[in-house]
C-alpha cells in the first residue's frame, strides 16, 4: 500500500522534502513507516524520541495501523505562539 508522509520543521530540512509517498507492506503501523523512512535517511533516527506522529491529522500512537492513502505527519515539538 502507499501512504503519504509529511515532514515539518527540522525534519523537513533534514529530509530535503516536505512530502513523499512511501510503499509499505499491508498491516504496517506508523512505527514501520518511520523505520522505512529512516532506512533511506538515517539522520532521521536521532529524532525518533522527540517526535509525535499525526495520522490523518490527529495525534496518534506509534502502533496505529495504516491503510492505503493515509496521511502521516512526523511532527517535531511544536513551538507556535
Amino acid at each position, binding site marked *: 500500500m502507499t501512504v503519504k508522509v509529511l515532514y*515539518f520543521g527540522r525534519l523537513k530540512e533534514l529530509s530535503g522534502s516536505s512530502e513523499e509517498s512511501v510503499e509499505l507492506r499491508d498491516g504496517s503501523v506508523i512505527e514501520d513507516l518511520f523505520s522505512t523512512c529512516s532506512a533511506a535517511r538515517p539522520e532521521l533516527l536521532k529524532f525518533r524520541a522527540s517526535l509525535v506522529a499525526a495520522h490523518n491529522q490527529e495525534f496518534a*500512537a506509534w502502533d496505529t495501523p495504516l*491503510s492505503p492513502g493515509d496521511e502521516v505527519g512526523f511532527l517535531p515539538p511544536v513551538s507556535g505562539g
Partner: protein
Amino acid sequence: MTAPYAHDRIEITRRPIPNAEIARQVRADDDGAVATFDGCVRNHSHDRATLYLEYEAYESMALAKMQEIAAHLHSTYAIDRVAMVHRLGRLEIGETSVFIAVSAPHRAAAFDACRYAIDTLKKTVPIWKKEFFADGAVWADGELPPIPAQTPTAKPASK
C-alpha cells in the same frame, strides 16, 4: 471545516494580523469584557539578539486543532465569541505572531478562556518557529503534544 460558532474567527494567515479589528469583532452587546492575548516577536532569545522569526505549520491540522480549542472554550467557560489568528512566514521584531480575543458577559471567564487558549495552542497546535540570529538560525525549543496512550481505531484517510 467551518467554525461551529458563527461569530468565531479562527484563522491562519500570512499577512499582518489586524489586532484591533479582531478585538472589536468579538464584542457584542451582551458582553461586559473582552480579554486579548497578543503574542509578539521578541528581540532576544536565550541572551542572543534575534533578527527575525519564520513560522511554518501543518496548516490543515493546525486549523483543526485551533477549532478544537475554540470548541472547548465554548463548552467550558461562560463566554461569547472567540477569535484566534496565527500568522506564518517571516515576522519582524515587534510584529504579532498570534492574537487571541475572547468576549464574555463577565471578565473572569474571558481571562480564563484566553489563558487556556494560548497555553493549549502552544502545546497542541502543529506550528513551528525558526529563530534567526546574526550568526545562524535554530528551530525553537518546543513542546511535545500528548500522544494517545492506546491504539485508536483505524480511520479512513481524509479526502
